[in-house]
């Protein structure tokens, strides 16, 4: 059971990284235009301002 002492912190840290990435993506306007993002990937033009500004 000693392995738990390693695994639990590891799982928490990994989850924490995910949560941090989610906060970062909210902050960068990534949920403002989901439909546009779905379509933009089809365009071969380089997207100069993916964060919407």
């Amino acid at each position: 059971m000693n392995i738990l002492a390693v695994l639990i912190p590891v799982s928490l840290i990994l989850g924490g990284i995910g949560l941090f990435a989610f906060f970062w993506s909210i902050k960068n306007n990534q949920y403002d235009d989901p439909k546009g993002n779905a379509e933009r990937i089809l365009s071969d033009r380089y997207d100069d301002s993916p964060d919407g500004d």
Partner: protein
Amino acid sequence: MNAETPSMAACPACVALPDKGKLLPKLDPGEVAMRRIELSLPTVHCAACIAAVERRLGHRPDVFGARVNLTLKRVSITAADLPEIEDALIETLDSLGYPARPLDSAVLAKSESEKAGRDLLARLGVAGFAMMNVMLLSISVWAGAEGYTRDLMHWISAAIALPAIAFSGFPFYKSAWGALRRGRLNMDVPISLAILLAGGVSLFETAEGGDHAYFDAALSLTFFLLIGRYLDYKTRAAARSAASELAALEVQKARRVGENGEELVPLDALREGDIVAVSPGERLPADGVVSWGDSELDPSMLTGETLPQAVGKGAVVRAGMLNISGPLKIRAEAVGEETLLKQITRLVETAESTRNKYTSLAEKAAAIYAPAVHLLSLVAFLGWGFATGDWRLAVNIAAAVLIITCPCALGLAVPAVLSAASGRLFAQGVLLKDGVSLERLAEIDFVVIDKTGTLTTGKPALVNESDISLQDRSVASALARHSAHPLSKAIAAAFPSDLEIEDIREHPGFGASGVLNGIPVRLGRADWCGAQAGDQTAVWLRIGEAAPVAFLFEDQLRPEAAKTIAALKNAGLKVHLLSGDARGAVAHMAREAGIDDWTAKATPAEKVEMLTALAAQGHKVLMVGDGLNDAAALAAAHVSISPASAVDASRSSADMIIINDDLREIVKSHKIAVASKRRIIENFSIAAIYNLISVPLALAGFATPLMAALAMSTSSITVSLNSMRIGRMK
């Protein structure tokens, strides 16, 4: 997609720097003031549209950045702060094939509402993260961990869960507290109580080394309910942006003729006795008397009549009428509060204030649900407490009852359906101003529809083509070619002609004259061409001294109108045509569209009366209309729809707007509304069934944290999946 079409330069800066695409040097962003402009682009729908719009705007020297938002169907532009820049940009987009409308950027500024959305999303993220971790830890407990291991798991869970429920559940606590302070119960009261009680009891049990901790239940409750809350927010944000799009109306101005020529003044600066100039194509800003000029006025938006009125000096005219042919000067007689326009606005306000408050399905469900849950849990607490004398067990069971009955599914049932349905409608071209209108639309049993501009196109078309000789056609066309009058344009478009007529002269308000092979020819109003004006819209042609020939015009039924009416009747709805136009025209259109009941010559007030009378008979009426004369009726109806071509007043008092101007959307929207209501009720039933099974178990004290977790997740998932089906309806 022709991205390189040159646009008409409409602003002084563009005349100085003619727009020739990439070759132009950009204005230096350091030198000019910049402004953010938001335009609504209802027709963008694909990757190619995005690229075309952004590239074309990027080529303008006065644009520093353009970004299309496909979800909101909008483009946000950073441009030089030049006068009239907005109009120039709109023209560029129009020439590209994307009709654009200005939005009030002050209203749309990254505002409170956007912050609220991000806030909810962040809370949702935290709840999701915490739920998954606690769930993992709980699995070992459910699998049979005992003693120290179990306590350790509980303590770690507590360390994650307590901060998370404090942060994520905040919107519920706030709303519940608000309701309690006013002495009411809303859905959030049992929710908050369940979350807090679950957290509290679990902490106590953990400290005492007990068997059951409900941390995971408290968190998944928060998580699922936040999803519902977020969907709800999304729907309302879309509705709000629709409403603000409609509120961003053009500022009403009038051209006042003063001593130093004409000046543009706001409408409310107009005084009685002022002289106002009105060009062809403009609407009259005030009631008054014509003091100079001859023209024809189109009263259709005001009264529903399609026959243009010929006016000359001394004629009494009404604000809101459209000037068709010649420039006019009008002495304002009634301004501001006294105009017909304002009277209609007052009618709208009265109608809105008397419209009864609608109790939505969610509110009805909450009204039954909230007291029932509290009562059950209190009964469980007291029952177990007195029966066994073990108050710790009693609190545990009361918490289990609250958690198990807690409305995960109930909180998701309505928002999930409404967000799926309003998304579906928006994709189809229908704007919903608020979710409740969908429930109202599902209840209708009667449709009242306006004629001019709603059932018909509002654009007259030639009807007696076969009665006109070939020669007359080409003479008329040659004369009409040079005129901007809508009827002339229709003639010129209908009969291409290469005839050359000499000495063509426009006679504003009357028509055009010319000389053909030495014979004078005239095209214009009946009395000017020596004919007797009939009861139909007509243009007359006179060649020399020959008898004048009439070109008769009629407002045309929309191509999809008859099908729409048939479909509405098939759906079991009664249809009534309500118009302000003359009896003959209304009867004719009613017959063509297949409507049996009709009313003609109805004033705006009579329209409202009719709707009130129908409501008094117990009918739930859908009103469809577009004119100023319909605005009050739209506000008085149970639910109302306007086509996008409607006047501003109507668009702002209608509950739904058909953006793509296709009447068939009424039928489709009604179907979606009925389906949505059925889904909501199904969802409530699903939630009720889960409760029927689990509540007795919880009351009997058999509920375990594992059961709570299962019941909660399965019911939420079933309800969400059921709601999604709206988006897949054919």
